[in-house]
């Protein structure tokens, strides 16, 4: 029986108070979603302004100081307030308990606390923005950060506080995955998204505390001059870089691993095909999580580190690349002999494969030390991490958002506009950032307010690309907001997927599943099962009404 007219988590209590004090992981996920989307908008505006300033050499729109604050805010907001929480805390919060057949995460209060801590962190970041924004870059390198007169402390505190929010989510996810799986869901029956979230949570809890203590020391250094990063007082500024990257390189995988999880779901669902090499994909997530702790030094090949250190870091860097490459082959093999359809989420997934491949290959180039010497701190690096972070994570996030949108809101969006949007984003992204590979290898350094005339044509082209990119997102904002109010009612299982979250109503009821879901199949058994109009069809031809729907 359809519950569309019935009570669901969105309409059971519409008061503001019921949202602000909710312990429901779905509502917390939705509130996170609003948070991260707001931050994406803000960070995106900074990005467009940066590209506008770089349209031509010389000061056009803003002063050098303003420009430096802009790219700092763009980086800090996008990384700490958007990408890191986007997939785990927003989408993950919503889908994780649903996908493993649980009623909620293990610690709902901690989950809500994580959201408020996130808000507090965002508050600090905004305060920093208004009180003379930090101009250090999101990396806060000493001794520049300890000597500049801008409000570095509040920005650092923001990152510190947001770290706690991230740790809370990580603790919650690990406990939930260990203890709250539905009866019968063994580790190898979990959807790959869950493996990815698990590996992410491991990194979140292992790396974030180290960043926390590093940022505390930075604040103490700046506020009280404790001298440990100050060369004049016997400290060492490069020490900060080591500690910063010990967190921030694994943080790259906090960002990209859950994206890979989403892609695994999308490829399987839209190819209607059993995922190829399930175990290899699952293990590779964990392998990436562990190796990622040992490669931080590759951000510092030009910092004067010893040859031995450079050799070890370069070597390990290549090995963290292998599992990512393996995943690509596995996704490809999953598509083989599938039944592929091209709804918007699948287009996002195909974009991901294209863009992430480029991000990966340029990562291999950067891993080779002699090449990194030339590319380090140029636009080549900027382009590379945008291909990984945006072409990878952000594209996967939007793929996931479109995929689970009907489940979250119980409404569909306009498919045609969604296709136009993903195509515009794809084209605009490549225009903006592929150009920057060439700029970088030609020698254009990053974080430059002004540049030499010879780089002008490519800079201009990159800026035009940013407008196409922006247009793609404006269209998306339009049809998504339209869908919230006017969207067509979504079926329980619009994509015919076999994972558990599609077995409950859209949107789900407060308790997710009114009965403990029945696990009679694996998440990717498309060789035996098929869902048509919310009905499960078995291979022997017998059609049956979905049993787990609320009666």
């Amino acid at each position, binding site marked *: 029986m359809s519950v569309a007219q019935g009570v669901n988590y969105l309409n059971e209590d519409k008061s503001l108070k019921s949202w602000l004090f909710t312990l429901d992981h779905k509502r917390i996920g939705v509130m996170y979603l609003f948070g991260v989307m707001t931050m994406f908008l803000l960070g995106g505006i900074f990005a467009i302004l940066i590209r506008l300033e770089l349209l031509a050499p010389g000061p056009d729109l803003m002063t050098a100081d303003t420009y430096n604050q802009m790219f700092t805010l763009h980086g800090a907001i996008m990384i700490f307030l958007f990408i890191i929480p986007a997939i785990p805390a927003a989408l993950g919060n919503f889908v994780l308990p649903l996908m493993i057949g649980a009623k909620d995460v293990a610690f709902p209060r901690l989950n809500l606390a994580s959201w408020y801590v996130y808000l507090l962190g965002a508050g600090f970041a905004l305060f920093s923005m208004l009180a003379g924004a930090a101009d250090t870059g999101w990396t806060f390198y000493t001794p520049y950060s300890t000597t500049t007169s801008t409000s570095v402390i509040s920005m650092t505190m923001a990152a510190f506080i947001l770290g706690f929010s991230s740790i809370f989510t990580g603790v919650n996810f690990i406990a939930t995955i260990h203890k709250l799986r539905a009866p019968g869901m063994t580790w190898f029956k979990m959807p790959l998204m869950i493996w990815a979230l698990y590996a992410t949570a491991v990194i979140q809890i292992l790396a974030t505390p180290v960043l926390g203590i590093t940022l505390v020391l930075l604040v103490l250094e700046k506020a009280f001059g404790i001298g440990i990063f100050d060369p004049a007082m016997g400290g060492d500024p490069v020490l900060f870089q080591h500690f910063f990257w010990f967190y921030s390189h694994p943080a790259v995988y906090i960002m990209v691993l859950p994206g890979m999880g989403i892609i695994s779901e999308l490829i399987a669902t839209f190819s209607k095909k059993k995922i190829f090499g399930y175990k290899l994909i699952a293990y590779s997530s964990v392998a990436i999580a562990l190796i990622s702790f040992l490669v931080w030094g590759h951000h510092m090949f030009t910092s004067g580190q010893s040859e031995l250190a450079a050799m070890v870091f370069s070597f390990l860097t290549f090995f963290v690349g292998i599992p990512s490459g*393996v995943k690509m082959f596995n996704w490809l093999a999953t*598509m083989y002999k*599938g039944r592929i359809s091209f709804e918007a989420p699948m287009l996002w997934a195909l974009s991901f494969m294209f863009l992430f491949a480029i991000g990966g290959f340029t990562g*291999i180039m950067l891993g080779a030390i*002699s090449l990194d010497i030339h590319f380090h701190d140029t636009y080549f690096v900027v382009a590379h991490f945008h291909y990984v972070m945006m072409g990878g994570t952000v594209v996967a996030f939007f793929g996931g958002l479109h995929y689970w949108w009907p489940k979250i809101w119980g409404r569909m969006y306009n498919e045609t506009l969604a296709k136009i949007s993903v195509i515009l984003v794809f084209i605009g992204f490549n225009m903006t950032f592929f150009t920057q590979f060439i700029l970088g290898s030609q020698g254009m350094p990053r974080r430059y307010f002004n540049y030499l005339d010879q780089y002008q044509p490519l800079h201009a082209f990159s800026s035009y690309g940013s407008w196409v990119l922006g247009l793609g997102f404006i269209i998306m904002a339009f049809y998504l907001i339209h869908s919230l109010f006017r969207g067509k009612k979504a079926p329980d299982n619009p994509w015919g997927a076999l994972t558990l979250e599609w077995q409950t109503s859209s949107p789900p009821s407060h308790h997710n599943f009114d009965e403990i879901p029945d696990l009679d199949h694996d998440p990717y058994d498309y060789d035996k099962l098929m869902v048509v109009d919310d009905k499960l069809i078995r291979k022997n031809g017998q059609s049956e009404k979905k049993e787990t729907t609320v009666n």
Partner: protein
Amino acid sequence: MDPNGTLFFPEQGSTIASEVDLLFHFVLYLSIFFFILVTGGSFYFAWRFRKKGEDQFTPNISHNTSLEIFWTVIPTILVFIIFIWGFKTYLKMNVTPANSMEVNVTAQKWFWTFGYKEGATTTNELVVPVNKSVKLLMSSQDVIHSFFVPAFRVKMDVLPNRYTSLWFEATKTGEFDLFCTEYCGKGHSEMIGKVKVLSDAEFASWLASSSGPSDLPPAEYGKELYKSKACFTCHSIDGTPSVGPTFKGVFGRTEELTDGSSITVDENYIRHSILEPQSQVVKGFQPVMPTYQGVLNSQQIDALIAFLKTVK
């Protein structure tokens, strides 16, 4: 883009450059091959196995161990080759030839100073002979900077608490761009200069003429210094305020200071501002100017004062 360069690289100006480029192109073609394999494959499969008509079940292909081993091992071998290759070139970059000519490099916000043993100092212009290995011994006066010459494919951070070094051997004469690549604040993108590669004979005569005292008239010498010591990065002579106050009409002007007092700009104030720039800062500006103690000698300061008197 560099007319002498390729799509991806500026022209090759040093002995190491061709080696770096070769590895890059090796990885590039390898990447293109695998890129076509993966994304071409995904697009081909997407089209070949697109959903057609009625719903069908898909085959149960869960894994294929030998295939998976194959596509794990092959990339592993390839990246291993890339690793060895990259590391070998890096070692070459790191081992300075014994007979190198040494130049001291000082980085500070936001200019480069190059000091030669013979006594010459230059700002934002590194002059070196062709076909001779040059070792740069670098340190910073304030924050971290990074020395980068794209045409030479060399880069090294310049740190405030220790010396770092870098070497290169230029293979052709001409001028090459020089950038600071470690973000260092407001003037980061102005912290650029040139590497001028001269023939042996030209270099010798340049070194000889630059190492003695100047015989230009003071005001003209001051104007030279204004350019060569990069004063213009922060002080305009056309009246536009920049990082620091403009020099237009500066001499004899009365300025209000950050502590509220005011002062008339005279010879002593200028000298004081060059040597202890943070002590009397004009209101509305940040105390960011570095000291020129040890960078400018008294003849040069006199020349700058003479020059400033002429900027009206």
